């Protein structure tokens, strides 16, 4: 069977134009997807049934037993951490938040190790952004800063920027100027009309220099800044100010390099400054397909986009204290539920070691690095293949992912609802 307009549940681009061929049980062909999408849909090797570890031996357990044990571990814990969420649909995230609430635990999503600093900057100065179609239809200048879309968001250029013709930009490739700012010459940099190569750690200084020029204070810059010549700085600032519509996209190269949230704040303030001359927007290149959805869902239920601690009864948020990495590093939590992410692969070693010491439960369709740290793993359907639900694209546009066929596994929502029901009953609520 051929299904059209399929939503790709891999990266934050959330492309919704894939064509997928299935035989009713598995996917046999993918059109329009990038290599990452092909790998996601074609290379989907599932864990078959729930597994639990005793010593270093794994054994299969029934779904009912696994669910009960997961609930008991969480009920037993004094300070449970519910982590992950960027790889599942919003409905499951919502149950997760209510589960954390009733447990008095901490819930956190993968922003904690990706765009958390961007969120902190936004909380200081705000966020002048737009939907991606606004860029596609209008932008005559696009900057990628510390982002390498060709590798991480392969279709970003073809759907939204360089290769995407729009209403006011009929021939995008010719009419749209591309600027890439990075510490190394990436594949994306090779496409740029202007490649700005910065010395590692120099982002903040370069942003400040650009701000000074845009403010009309270019004379304070007398020589190169972090390896960027004065001429190039002036040229880029000029290009931006003369743009009819400019758009900055930034990635972890800016968010996670020295300065972190201060870099992002500086970039946002540059954008604000440019808006005094023309129209400019800035947007984070969110990684996982529904990490932004986890921020959204957390916000409307708890008020905060990530790192929410219910231990005091109210929702409490303090990144650096209530963020997963910090909680794990302090060896504070005594049980962890990992849903739809792989902290085993992305967390610092000390955190992973703590996860291995405490009872860690993973709800995930696949065997991954976290499997090796956990005590119990419950496989589930993959959203976008055999489960459906809401996802939020990197720009906030909500899209309903499609279920392509009925699989053998329950969805994240079903598993979490069952755990929630047991916990709720035990708590007498």
């Amino acid at each position: 069977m051929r299904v059209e307009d399929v939503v790709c549940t891999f990266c934050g681009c959330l492309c919704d134009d894939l064509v997928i061929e299935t035989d009713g049980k598995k996917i046999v062909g993918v059109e329009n997807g990038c290599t990452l999408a092909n790998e996601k849909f074609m290379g989907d090797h599932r864990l078959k049934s729930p597994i639990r570890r005793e010593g270093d031996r794994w054994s299969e357990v029934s779904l009912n037993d696994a669910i009960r044990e997961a609930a008991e571990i969480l009920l037993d814990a004094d300070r449970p951490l519910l982590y992950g969420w960027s790889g599942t649909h919003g409905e499951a995230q919502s149950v997760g938040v209510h589960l954390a609430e009733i447990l008095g635990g901490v819930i956190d999503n993968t922003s904690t190790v990706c765009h958390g600093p961007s969120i902190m900057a936004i909380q200081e100065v705000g966020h002048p952004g737009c939907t991606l179609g606004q860029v596609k239809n209008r932008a005559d200048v696009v900057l990628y800063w510390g982002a390498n879309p060709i590798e991480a968001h392969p279709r970003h250029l073809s759907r939204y920027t360089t290769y995407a013709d729009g209403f006011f930009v009929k021939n995008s490739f010719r009419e749209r100027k591309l600027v890439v700012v990075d510490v190394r010459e990436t594949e994306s940099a090779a496409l740029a009309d202007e490649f700005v190569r910065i010395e590692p750690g120099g982002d903040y200084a370069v942003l400040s220099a650009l701000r000074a020029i845009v403010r009309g204070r270019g004379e304070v810059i007398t020589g190169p800044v972090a390896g960027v010549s004065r001429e190039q700085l002036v040229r880029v600032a000029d290009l931006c100010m003369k743009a009819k519509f400019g758009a900055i996209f930034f990635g972890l190269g800016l968010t996670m390099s020295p300065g972190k949230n201060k870099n992002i704040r500086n970039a946002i303030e540059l954008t604000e400054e440019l808006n005094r001359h023309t129209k400019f927007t800035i947007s984070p290149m969110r990684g996982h397909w529904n990490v932004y959805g986890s921020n959204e869902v957390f916000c409307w239920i708890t008020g905060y986009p990530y790192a929410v601690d219910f231990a005091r009864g109210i929702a409490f948020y303090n990144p650096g204290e209530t963020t997963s990495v910090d909680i794990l590093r302090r060896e504070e939590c005594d049980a962890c539920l990992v849903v739809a992410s792989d902290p085993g692969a992305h967390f610092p070693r000390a955190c992973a070691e703590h996860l291995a010491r405490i009872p860690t439960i993973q709800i995930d369709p696949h065997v991954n690095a976290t499997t090796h740290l956990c005590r119990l793993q419950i496989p589930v359907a993959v959203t976008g293949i055999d489960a459906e639900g809401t996802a939020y694209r990197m720009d906030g546009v909500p899209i309903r992912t499609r279920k392509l066929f009925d699989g053998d596994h329950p969805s994240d929502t079903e598993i979490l609802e069952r755990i929630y029901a047991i916990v709720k009953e035990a708590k007498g609520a």
Partner: protein
Amino acid sequence: MSGLLIRNAYVIDPLAGIRGEIMDIAILDGKIAEGAGSGCEVIDAQGCLTLPGGIDSHSHVSGTKVNFGRYMSPEDMRAGRTSRRGVMHVTSGYSVPTTFGNSYRYSAMGYTTVLEGAMAPLEARHTHEEFTATPHQDMMANTLFDGNWSVMEAVRDKDLRRTAAVVAWTLAAVKGFAIKLTNPGGTEAWGWGEDLHSIHQQVPNFGVTPAEIIGTMIRANELLDLPHSVHLHCNNLGVPGNYQTTLETIDLAPDLNSRRQSLYLTHVQFHSYGGTTWRDICSKSEDIARAVNNRPQVAIDMGQIMFGRTTTMTADGPMEWRLYMLHHNKWSNHDVELETGSGIIPVYYSRKSLVNCVMWAIGLELALLVKDPWQCMLATDNPNGAPFVKYPEIIALLMSRKFRDKEGEKIDPRTGHYVPLFSLDRELDWYEIAVMTRAAQAKALGITRIGKGTLTPGSEADVAIYPLDPADLDPAIDFEQVMAGFARTRYTIKRGRVVARDGEVIVEGANSTVWTRANVPPDMDLSADREFVKKFEQYYTVRMRNYPVQDVYLPRGVRIDTEVSP
């Protein structure tokens, strides 16, 4: 079969012509009934003020920009938080509460129906998700068309039927309720960092003016026979001297509908400024009220501001930028492709700011100067003028000249020079307040047809019983009690169930979402229109098939069907 009998209620039900009578109200199966059946639950209202459930006809509580207000404002989240208690979830936030926070606080005030003031069609799914998490109010969404490319093209081509067709297709696709125009044309101009300064200025690249958009949309609205009228946020919001724009806009409104207004102007306080700069800004409420008094075809809401901290959020992106240039606090902006814009900034309305004092006075003046309370609804453009929890205080101000004078002593002493407020004697009575907080809304929104806003048998059993005894209270003097009474009902009843008691929510909610489907003849059906489909696929970044909001997002959808007028 669940019956409930409310005895000894002091009922004001303006739509039924009841102006204050002690009576019993019977409820059966979620509806007001002739009798509640034997063995039903009985509530003794003890002569307390009993009204149909409150209806907010303009409030920002759900969707992309509201949630971004939360996202960017941990300081606001900390400013109002409650823990999990009984069936109540954790809540956070003061001016932009979490969805449960909104729902519980509205419920405590006796509100059972809320219209979200602005939903961008492309992001409608988000609004509906938050509606589901706002369990104690029936919700509906104003749908933004101010910068809609297909609308502007149809208006430019003077094609009324096609304009209406775009509206019909979009409302059905996104499960929207009504047409909202926010700074029509201006939000498209803002795509280039510009704004429009008059309703006769052309929208860049589209060859239409706001006046043409507004005029055509009013007619398209009536062609589709939508329950509500066009809901308009005028151009030039917050600009000194903008009352001229507002008067010109009111002049555009024809009288096309005998059941309700043909044009609803929202948060008119922000659109009633005289003067030329922030230094000489003054109230033009008298001019605006006169225009409204002369035209039964328009209705307005106040857009009252109250002193203190809040967050402004609107689809009017260029306005938020202007405001940011004054406040320099923090600024978010979010333009939506082919449709609209939006912006958010936090603000503090200060008693020490003459401008803010003038704004505060104007809102009250509008309510006191518009003669017919059915034409002026009580609202703050929540949270733009103030969070909705300030409504009780606004009611008290409108009911008591003494309270107004007392407040007047605390504000900038020059205020009286710029506003007529302190010369106005009018004190609204209980009946007028009942009109301005529910009955007028039900009529203006066109939702009396689904049993909203009244307590006549067959209506939805949404009832608010306030701990206020009108036989015993003089609101002109007892304004403190009036304020406290409207802040916390004794009982809030939603669809026949007691959902809140003395300010505490006691059951899990199950709201409905009300939306409109205009059934159009084949020549107006755009789903197969080649040009429409082609443009959609070329310029949106979402496939046309993935755009409509699926039924699962409205677990209890209530659809109002309309037919195209012949």
